[in-house]
């Protein structure tokens, strides 16, 4: 899976939980789920569960800790996909 496909897939996952749509339209690697997209912290777990389902990976607790922005999420997805 190339990086653009991964970003598009991640954007689709994140979209339903976004509260700040302007920030979503302007999404880039440093975009923070909570600070920028104003996603409710209880919904961050839904994003993690959706990522697990849609990418067919398991996100361990250490990875989950870092899952605060797009860049970290993509890194975690890539690492876990490579481990499969």
């Amino acid at each position, binding site marked *: 899976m190339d990086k653009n496909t991964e970003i598009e897939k991640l954007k689709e996952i994140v979209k339903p939980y976004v509260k700040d749509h302007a920030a979503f339209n302007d999404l880039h690697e440093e975009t923070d789920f909570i600070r920028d997209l104003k996603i*409710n912290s209880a919904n961050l777990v839904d994003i993690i*569960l959706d990522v697990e389902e849609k990418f067919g990976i398991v996100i361990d607790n250490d990875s989950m800790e870092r899952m*605060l922005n797009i860049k970290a999420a993509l890194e975690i997805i890539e690492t876990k996909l490579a481990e499969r």
Partner: protein
Amino acid sequence: MIGNDIIDLALACEESDWQREGFLDKLFTAEEQEFILNYSLPESMVWILWSMKESAYKIFNNATGKRAYIPLQLVCSLLENKDNCFYGKVTCAGMNFFTMTYISNDCIETIAVDKHEYFDKISVVDNSTIITKINDLPGFYDENKKRYRSVSVSHHGRYKKIVTLN
């Protein structure tokens, strides 16, 4: 230090499916899950414990400068239930936070402090107060006391609360 978290239960019910597979496992320890499932109103207990974790995390984040999604490291224990108020404790990385959680029909609110005696110093700040950030910490200038006071702000759905320590 003080941290608070408010949850509009109607909105929480709309935004989250706590019975979704994996939801409890990612957010709550085995003991916390057992407590949730054995409680008469499991969904309420999900949000009571979640608001305890959130309010304690706010202090942890301010005290350490660390940002991380660490619900399983914020370990809750409930100590006492008196008049619709739960008193509890959250531990994280060797730090203790003391919490009080108020429950009404459609709202859950937790206030956490890092010293037990601070429970007597909690005061609510008017919601119309202009909150600014200094060194990334929210606060306001208190005209009466002639000093800057840090606050914790929580907003969810229909509810908003600003608290400070006197």
